């Protein structure tokens, strides 16, 4: 019988953190992050092997839907052959930063060196898809904590297109990321798997928007969402994978059908009319995504039976039914309302919106 691998206590924490992120154990991960610890500069071969084993579970975990709580995608395994996910040293840097780096932010270099981690997660090399998935899982696991905000500010995290797709509201500001990697090969499969979670998250942000009071916050959020949806939907279009942007429809459809417009109802009345107007425009980012889908839908309706891409167009027409042309027309009307000259605000509705 083989001897169990022996690693240092700090290495065991690294491995446990990786396993927790992969398994979607958010509560356990958050508990680990509450007490920062010192890490040695290097990890042992045994630790490297065990980390590799933990990361090898990312793909199965995504397919099971367990990592994100997204639910199992229907017959997913029938559509895609399993492919590998590559990880680089960036994933190790991410894990080390989570365990030790946060604690040294703002401290002298000597203190940082004592804990064995860099205070900032630098973005030196392009991230692999596996790295991006780990960044996404880390942001997901730290939701609702201050760690998520610190993580979102790190250059390495901000260079991950998948992080922007899922957490544009947390990262803030226009993205400089290219989304093409997420529209082909394994990247497209990852987006497909995460689509239900993406739809849920974008819908939640849309509901929260209605309560934002600071125009600047809403403008920054809208700029982030516009740049992410614009970049991602263009990449989908270029790659012939418009279906990957289906989460936009799934996010907006329940809101459109229940007539919950993203009208910012609580904007600070002492702010200038110019900033309030810009904030109202910014609030329509998801609706602009729906408008792009509506333009695609019109093009799909013009594809004839004899055309090569007829089957694809038919699938996308069926996909658009999630929101339907009537829903898209309602979204368009809301966009018009958001862009219109503001009216003198009334007392506003007293009701609340239940989570969908």
């Amino acid at each position, binding site marked *: 019988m083989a001897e169990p691998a022996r690693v240092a206590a700090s290495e065991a924490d690294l491995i446990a953190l990786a396993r927790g992120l992969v398994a979607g154990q958010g509560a356990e991960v958050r508990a680990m992050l509450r007490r920062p610890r010192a890490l040695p500069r290097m990890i042992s071969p045994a630790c490297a092997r065990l980390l590799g084993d933990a990361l090898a579970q990312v793909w199965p975990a995504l397919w099971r839907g367990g990592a994100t709580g997204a639910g199992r995608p229907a017959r997913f395994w029938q559509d895609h052959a399993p492919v590998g996910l590559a990880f680089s040293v960036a994933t190790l840097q991410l894990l080390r930063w989570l365990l030790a780096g946060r604690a040294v932010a703002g401290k002298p270099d000597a203190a940082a060196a004592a804990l064995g981690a860099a205070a900032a997660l630098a973005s030196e090399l392009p991230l692999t898809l596996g790295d991006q998935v780990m960044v996404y899982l880390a942001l997901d696991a730290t939701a609702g904590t201050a760690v998520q905000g610190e993580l979102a500010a790190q250059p390495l995290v901000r260079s991950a297109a998948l992080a922007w797709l899922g957490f544009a509201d947390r990262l803030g500001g226009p993205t400089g990321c290219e989304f093409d990697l997420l529209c082909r090969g394994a990247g497209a499969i990852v987006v497909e798997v995460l689509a239900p979670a993406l739809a849920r998250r974008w819908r939640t942000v849309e509901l929260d928007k209605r309560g934002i009071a600071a125009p600047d916050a809403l403008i920054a959020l809208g700029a982030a969402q516009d740049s992410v949806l614009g970049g991602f939907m263009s990449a989908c279009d270029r790659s012939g994978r418009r279906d990957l942007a289906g989460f936009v429809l799934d996010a907006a459809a329940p809101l459109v059908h229940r007539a919950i417009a993203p009208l910012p109802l609580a904007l600070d009345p002492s702010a200038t*009319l110019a900033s309030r107007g810009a904030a109202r425009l910014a609030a329509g980012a998801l609706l602009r995504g729906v408008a792009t889908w509506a333009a695609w839908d019109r093009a799909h309706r013009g594809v004839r039976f004899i055309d090569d891409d007829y089957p694809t167009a038919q699938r996308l027409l069926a996909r658009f039914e999630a929101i339907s042309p009537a829903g898209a027309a309602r979204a368009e009307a809301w966009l018009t309302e958001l862009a*219109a000259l503001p009216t003198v605000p009334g007392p506003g509705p007293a009701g609340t919106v239940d989570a969908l």
Partner: protein
Amino acid sequence: MSRAIQVRVSESVTRTVHVEDGVAAPLEMLPILPPARMAELLAHELVARGFVRDGARCTRSEPDGLEVTIDLEAATVAVALGADVQLDDAVELAVAVAVESHERAEAALRDDARQVLDDRLAARTAALQGAVTARLEAKVAELKRELDAAIGRATVAALTEKAAQLGRIEETHLDEAGNLTIRVRL
């Protein structure tokens, strides 16, 4: 033994501040006739309401500083209100210090006085900005009603023109609710 003296510093400031606010929005016009013709009909209504036409732009400057610009080609309206105000303020501060350190105390007191003045002017500028925004908000509500009326009349004119293209207009009726009925013999 050092002697105590009182250092007194007076500072005054006169500053001209410019505060402004503005908003832009698209105009909602039904595409009854080609855009260029719709723009012509709207321009006609706007000129009747005191706008000055300059090519594809109609502008109106009001005595209170409100500037309304309508881009007929882009079908947008921009409204801006600004104000230049001269703010004067003065402050006098005093402190008792030892005579040897009066120079240092005076410099510190002068810095404090300038800071007090800056804070007061910033607060007054913010209040002015708020007043301009409130005035603009009220003006925008009026302008919205006026533009809706102008667009409504331009739409009626467009419908009448369209009906005339279809046949001979026998009767036109506009009721109090704004519903237009045009009877056309084809």
